[in-house]
C-alpha cells in the first residue's frame, strides 16, 4: 500500500492531541507503522493546530503535509487546512458542509447519544477508524488500556461513543472512502523523541537532571520526574537555566551522571556553564531542543538554527562534543553515547534536537540499544598521589569524585595546576593545561562517526544534511530518483569535532537544512575544502519534507 496521511486540525484545547494519540495507537495496534508529528501555536486555548498521522506498512518516519483524510474540528480549521487535502481526499467536519464532506456532529452525538460532551473525542476517533477501515475491536482494545483505571462506566461510555462514531462514518462514507486497513502481524515500537531521550538517559546511568521549563524540551524532565521512583533519576526544576546547568555540574563533579535540557534562549544562558564544564573537565549532557529564533522566536515551531551557536558555545577554547540525532531511536543511541563520551573525555556534550524530533512519534521494528553505559571514573585504590588534572599524554586525567576515597578532588574554573589550584605560571603550567584540554580532542575526533552515505556511488548531486532532516532527505532522494535525477545523500549526526572524511569529488554538493543561512555548509567549508551549490533551506517554522525538498531542488537547480 501507499502511505496514508491523516491530519486532525482544530483549536488548542479541542482535543486534537487526544484524538490523534488514540488513533495512532489504534493503528499501531492494528499492525501498521505510524509516524505522527504536530504543529501548534504558542497558546493554551484557541488558535489552529494540527496533528498528522502517517500510516504505512513499513516505517518511513518522515512528515507528510498532504492529507488523505482531514478531520477539522472547527470551521477555521477547515479553512486553514483544506488546501492540504489531496484531490481524492476526504474532509471530515462537525457541521454539514459542502458536497463530499463527511459531517459528523461529534459533540452533539456525545452529548445526546452518550450523555456527556467529553466523549466527543472518542466519537471522532471512532469515525476516523470507520473511515479508514480499521477494526473497531482494535480501537476498543486501546480504549480499554487507556480507560481501565477510570471504572467500568467510563469505559463503557467510551466504547459506545466509538461505536456510534464508527457506524456514522461507515454509513456516510459510501464510496468516498476507499481505504481498508486490515489487521497486520506487526507490533511496532511507537516512541516519541522526548520519550527516547529520558529513557536512554536513565539507561545510560544518568542520575540527575535539573532544568527550567522551555518548549520543546520540557517533556524530558517531565518524563523523568514522573518516573522518578521507577527510573531513580533525581529531577529538579531549577529557578533558571543558569541554576540548572550549575546544579548539573555540581552533581557531575560529585560523581553522578547529570544532564539538563532546554531550548535556544535557555541554552544561551547556559553557555557560561558549558565553558566551565570545559575548564573544570566536568562531564555534562545538555539537550538543546531547537526552535526558531532569534530570541523568543516561534516557541512551538521547529528549526535547525543553532548549529554554529552550539559548536562555538562558551567563551575561551575547550573541547565539546555536538551530536544531532535524527529520530527517536537514534536519539536513544546518541543519548547513551553522549553520557559515555562526556564521562570518558570529561567534557560537555550537546545533544541537538528540535521540535520536530521532540514532539514526533516514530515506529520501529526493533528498539535494541546499540551500546550500554560504560563508566570511566578512576579507581582510587590504584592512585597514590592524586592530581585531578594530572598531565597525561592523551590529555585525560583520572577523575574521582569527592567522598569516593581519601583522595581530595579539587576543581577550579580559573586556570589551574595539576592539583586544581589557581595558577599564574604562564611559562609552563598555563600552556600545558591549554594543550591538555585540546589534546583530548584528538582521541575524540577518532571516535566520531563519519557521516552516513546513501546512494552516492552514481550520484550527480549529493544532498548533505544533519540531524532530524534525515528522513525527509531520504524521501526526497526516493522521489527524485523516481524522476531519474541521480541524487545521493550524506548525512551528519556527529557534528563536532568533525571526523576525517572525504567527500565525493565528482558530485556537486548542496546542504538541506531547516534554517535560513545554511549553517552546515558554512561549517563544512571551514573544515573541508568544499564548495556548495545553492543550498536548500526552510525557515518558516515547519519541518522539511521529501516533497518540499524535491520542489525546491527543481526550483533552484534546473
Amino acid at each position, binding site marked *: 500500500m501507499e502511505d496514508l496521511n491523516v491530519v486532525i486540525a482544530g483549536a488548542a484545547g479541542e482535543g486534537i492531541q487526544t484524538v490523534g494519540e488514540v488513533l495512532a*495507537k489504534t493503528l*499501531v*495496534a*492494528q499492525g501498521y507503522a505510524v509516524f505522527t508529528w504536530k504543529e501548534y501555536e504558542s497558546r493554551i486555548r484557541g488558535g489552529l493546530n494540527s496533528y498528522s498521522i502517517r500510516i504505512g506498512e513499513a516505517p518511513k518516519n518522515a512528515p507528510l503535509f498532504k492529507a488523505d483524510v482531514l478531520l477539522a474540528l472547527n470551521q477555521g480549521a477547515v479553512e486553514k487546512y483544506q488546501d492540504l487535502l489531496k484531490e481524492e481526499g476526504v474532509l471530515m467536519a462537525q457541521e454539514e458542509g459542502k458536497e463530499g464532506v463527511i459531517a459528523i456532529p461529534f459533540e452533539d452525538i456525545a452529548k445526546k447519544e452518550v450523555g456527556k460532551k467529553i466523549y466527543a473525542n472518542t466519537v471522532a476517533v471512532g469515525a476516523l477508524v470507520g473511515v479508514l477501515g480499521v477494526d473497531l475491536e482494535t480501537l476498543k*482494545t486501546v480504549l480499554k*488500556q*487507556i480507560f481501565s483505571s477510570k471504572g467500568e462506566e467510563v469505559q463503557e461510555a467510551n466504547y459506545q461513543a466509538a461505536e456510534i462514531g464508527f457506524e456514522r462514518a461507515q454509513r456516510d462514507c459510501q464510496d468516498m472512502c476507499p481505504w481498508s486497513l486490515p489487521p497486520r502481524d506487526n*507490533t*511496532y*515500537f*511507537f516512541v516519541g523523541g522526548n520519550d527516547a531521550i529520558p*529513557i536512554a538517559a*536513565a*539507561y545510560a546511568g544518568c*542520575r*540527575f537532571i*535539573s532544568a527550567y521549563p522551555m518548549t520543546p524540551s520540557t517533556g524530558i524532565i517531565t518524563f523523568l520526574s514522573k*518516573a522518578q521512583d*521507577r*527510573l*531513580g533519576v*533525581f529531577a*529538579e526544576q531549577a*529557578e*533558571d537555566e*543558569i*541554576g540548572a546547568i*550549575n*546544579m*548539573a*555540574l*555540581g*552533581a*557531575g*563533579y*560529585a*560523581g*553522578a551522571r*547529570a544532564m539538563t535540557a532546554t531550548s535556544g534562549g535557555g541554552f544561551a544562558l547556559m553557555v557560561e*556553564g558549558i565553558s*566551565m564544564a570545559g575548564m*573544570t573537565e566536568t562531564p555534562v549532557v545538555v539537550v538543546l531542543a531547537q526552535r526558531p529564533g532569534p530570541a523568543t522566536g516561534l516557541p512551538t515551531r521547529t528549526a535547525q538554527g543553532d548549529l554554529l551557536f552550539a559548536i562555538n558555545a562558551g567563551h575561551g577554547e575547550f573541547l565539546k562534543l555536538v551530536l544531532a540525532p535524527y529520530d527517536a531511536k537514534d536519539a536513544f543511541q546518541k543519548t547513551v553515547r553522549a553520557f559515555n563520551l562526556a564521562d570518558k573525555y570529561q567534557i560537555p556534550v550537546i545533544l541537538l534536537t528540535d521540535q520536530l524530533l521532540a514532539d514526533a512519534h516514530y515506529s520501529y521494528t526493533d*528498539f535494541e*540499544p546499540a551500546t*550500554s*553505559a560504560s563508566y570511566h571514573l578512576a579507581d582510587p585504590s590504584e592512585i597514590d598521589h592524586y592530581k585531578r588534572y594530572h598531565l597525561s599524554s592523551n590529555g585525560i586525567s583520572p577523575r574521582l*569524585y*569527592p*567522598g*569516593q576515597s*581519601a*583522595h*581530595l578532588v*579539587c576543581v*577550579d*574554573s*580559573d586556570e589551574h595546576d595539576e592539583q*586544581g*589550584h*589557581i595558577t599564574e605560571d604562564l611559562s609552563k603550567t598555563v600552556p600545558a593545561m591549554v594543550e591538555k584540554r585540546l589534546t583530548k580532542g584528538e582521541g575524540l575526533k577518532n571516535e566520531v562517526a563519519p557521516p552516513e552515505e546513501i546512494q552516492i556511488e552514481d550520484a550527480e548531486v549529493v544532498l548533505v544534511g544533519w540531524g532530524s532532516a534525515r528522513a525527509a532527505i531520504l524521501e526526497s532522494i526516493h522521489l527524485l530518483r523516481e524522476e531519474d535525477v541521480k541524487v545521493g545523500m550524506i548525512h551528519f549526526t556527529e557534528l563536532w569535532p568533525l571526523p576525517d572524511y572525504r567527500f565525493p569529488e565528482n558530485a556537486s554538493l548542496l546542504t538541506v537544512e531547516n534554517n535560513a543561512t545554511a549553517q552546515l555548509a558554512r561549517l563544512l567549508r571551514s573544515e573541508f575544502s568544499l564548495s556548495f551549490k545553492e543550498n536548500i533551506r526552510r525557515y518558516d517554522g515547519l519541518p522539511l519534507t521529501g516533497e518540499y525538498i524535491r520542489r525546491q531542488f527543481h526550483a533552484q537547480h534546473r
Partner: protein
Amino acid sequence: MPSIDDYANNVEIQWCPGCPNFGILQAFKKALVELEKTPDQVCLISGIGQAAKLPHYLKCNFFNGLHGRPIPVALGVQTANPDLTTVVVTGDGDCYGEGGNHFIHALRRNPDITVVVHNNEIYALTKGQASPTTPQGEKRTLQVKGVDIEPLNMPAIAILHDCAFVARGFARNIDHLKGLLVEAIQHPGFSYVDVIQPCITWGNRPISWYEDRVRELGEEHNPKDKDAAMALALGDKDEFPIGILYQSEPKDPFGHRYRDAVTDGPLAQMPSLSEDQLHKMLSEFKPGAGRFLD
C-alpha cells in the same frame, strides 16, 4: 581525630596581609577540627572573588566555580553525595549580586548545606566597586559620589522565609565565628552565616570601626523568636550584633522524598538500569501494553 595541621596545605595565600579573611580561614579550620571532620569528608564550593579563594587555602575537596554560581553547584553536590559536608564560601557580590536569584530560591528548598558569606560590603577582587551590601552614601571606585541605592538585607529575607539557621559572625572574633560555623554545619537544612569582613585595602573604614560596633549576642536573644531575629536583622546599620540570629522549626530537607523512595547514598553508587528493566519499559511502548507512565 583531625588536627588543624591536617587542614593546612602549602598553597600561597593571595589575600592582602592582615585581611580579616585570614580570620575566617582560621575559624573554618578550627570548626572542622572540632566537628572531627577529615578533609575528605568536606567539600567547599565557591564562586569568584577574594572570599571565593578560600577553598584553595584549606586542604579538602573543593569546586571553585563561576562568579555568582556556587549555590546551585552545591545543591548538585549535596544531592549527588549527601554524605559530604557541603559548604559554600562566597562573597557579598558573588552571593547577593550575581548570585542573588540562586540564594533566594535555595531558601525555598532548604538543602542541607551551609553558606558562609564574607561580607566586606565591596567587590574587592575587581578593585572596589559597590556591592549589594554597601551602605548608602559610601564611596566606591565606581560610585565616586557615594552609593545612591539601598543595600539588600539578605539575613532578613532569610529569616522571613524561615531559613533553618541564620547567623552573623565577625571575621576577627575567630573563636566566636568558629562556634557559629560548628553550629551551622551541624544544623540540618540550609544554614547561612553572614560574616562581617572589613576590606582593609578598598574599604573606607578601619577594622577598629567595626570592632567598636560588634556585639556578641548573649542568652537574652532566643533564636527561635522570629520577631526578635527580624528586629536584629533590621536593626541599626552601624551596629553589628553577632551570633545565631534565627533557627526555624525543624523541617524537611531538600530531596527527602527521593531519599526515602530511591536511595539515601551517593548517586554514583547506584546500579544503573538493567537490560531487563529497559526492555520491560520499552515493551510498554508497544500497542497492547499501554504507556507505562500515563
